[in-house]
């Protein structure tokens, strides 16, 4: 498959109002990763994804396909990994995130992140949620904002009487919701979620999924998952990545993306069809 073919298929699939670079009202992040390297290792190639405002974009694919790499490129978390470099661009609200005069720290304040392992800080529940507010010298009512964030994360009722307890004293699912509350407290424009449920049991997973659908009203979400059912349940748009092992290396690339229903029910590519029907994983 040639890159040109891929591009045309993606352009067709992404639907109306997606004219890439111009950054129309509905596109929050427009990313085009031609090549992503960790040192000499080519991790991802030819991947072009748009994250649309107010929607959930799911990144699916087998392990090693670079979906996490793509996600972490969006808020420059990959900068922390030695040897990371890439060709292409990431535009957030029309601005180039990797432009020379952009501060990666500022990018991460607009594009929040929830990680695979719940990772609350070893401080009280309240301080965890207030962390970002204090970081940004929030001028308003911190207590009210913390309560609001915990309510948004559907955690308030469970913790309202023990806000002084350590965040680490909560169960895994509660910790992950605490991390979501911490991320939304500062009202970022986009929330990136890197397999947020893979360390959780089915009930906690269900709660997080319901939560994502609620959060969709206020936030734009991009989620990496290797659980196809999860993508079908929550994602409006799905991007399917695969891994190319032809050249003796493992390089991830975007196979196709489009509305979730179409990707799962009438995929364009044979590879997608095989993946979503469970023929490989």
């Amino acid at each position, binding site marked *: 498959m040639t890159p040109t073919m891929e591009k045309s298929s993606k352009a067709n699939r992404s639907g109306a109002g997606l004219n890439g670079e111009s950054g129309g009202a509905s596109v929050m992040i427009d990313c085009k990763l031609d090549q992503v390297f960790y040192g000499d290792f080519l991790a991802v190639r030819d991947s072009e994804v748009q994250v649309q405002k107010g929607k959930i974009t799911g990144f699916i694919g087998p392990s090693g396909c670079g979906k996490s790499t793509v996600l972490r490129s969006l808020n420059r978390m990959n900068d*922390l990994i030695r040897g990371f470099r890439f060709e292409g661009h990431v535009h957030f609200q029309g601005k180039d995130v990797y432009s020379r005069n952009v501060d990666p720290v*500022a990018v991460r304040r607009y594009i929040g992140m929830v990680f695979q392992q719940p990772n*609350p800080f070893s401080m009280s529940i309240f301080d965890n949620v207030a962390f*970002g507010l204090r*970081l940004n010298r929030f001028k308003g009512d911190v207590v009210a904002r913390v309560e609001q964030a915990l309510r948004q994360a559907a955690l308030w009722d469970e913790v309202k009487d023990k806000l002084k*307890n350590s965040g680490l004293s909560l169960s895994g699912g509660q910790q992950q919701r605490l991390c979501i509350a911490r991320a939304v407290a500062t009202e970022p424009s986009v929330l990136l979620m890197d397999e947020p449920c893979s360390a959780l049991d089915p009930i906690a997973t269900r709660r997080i999924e319901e939560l994502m659908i609620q959060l969709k009203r206020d936030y734009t979400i991009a989620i990496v998952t290797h659980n196809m059912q999860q993508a079908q349940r929550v994602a409006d748009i799905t991007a399917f990545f695969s891994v190319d092992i032809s050249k003796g290396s493992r390089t991830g690339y975007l196979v196709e993306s489009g509305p979730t229903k179409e990707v799962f029910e009438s995929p364009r590519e044979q590879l997608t069809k095989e993946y979503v029907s469970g023929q490989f994983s």
Partner: protein
Amino acid sequence: MSDSSIALAPPSPMSDARLERSPFEPRALKSLVLTTGVWVAAILAGIPLVSVLYMLIVRGGARLSTSLFVELPPAGFEMGGGFGNAIAGTVVMIGISALLSIPFGILSAVFLAELGPDSRLAQAARFATKTLTGMPSILTGVFAYAVVVLTTGTYSAPAGGLALAVLMVPTVVLTAESAIRSVPKITRDAAYGMGCTRSQVIWKVMLPTAMPGILTGVMLAVARAAGETAPLLFTALFSSYSPFSGGVPHLMQPTASLAVLIYNFSGMPFENQIELAWAASLVLVLLVLAINVLSRWVGQRRV
């Protein structure tokens, strides 16, 4: 043969499984011998500790009274007296050494763990620190003698403090480094993901998370420094006067310390001084214990 048939046979009420203890079986005997050995070793290891504590409490406790904490050390044939000046001197010098070594040690540890863990400077510093951990304490005294005593022209509390600080730094650096390193990577990611700058990650997340481990290292260092005599012999010497006589601190003069007082008095042929040395030993142990408890209390308040 019989073993394998037991293993293969499905458990059923009909098979005669042997579940009783057989105390003279080789492996049972081996287990018994090893268990006994471990107990004996543990008790032997505990004897010195328990006997030292017992002697301290019995002999030092006999002389314990409030006058010990206020009066000055007695001369040759005098009776009574105390070592208020030595307690004050020890506290002052431990304070000086803590002020020097803790910030210095923690900042070095931050560099070693976070900023340049693989740099050449870090590797050299780590090697030097590990070497310094095993350095004879008298050498730090010689160092402080050369740096402070010779330049200022007098034995003093700051000179003693510096000698103890040099002794403390390696312990603080190494334990703080491993405490910072043991902060999970996901915690760091969370901090960066929240939009922290590198220094905010270190100050607001890494150091608070590592604080209990860092405090443990600081405590080990303080406890060691409080009991050291050799570094003080060349630097603070001893004095029969209080470092705070008249309510003003006189630090640039020879300063008494509990460790040196114990060293001096325990060798004297006078019963009174020997009793005071015992009491001073007990007070020193209690002082270290108090600092330990205090630092744990401070460290735990941060959730």
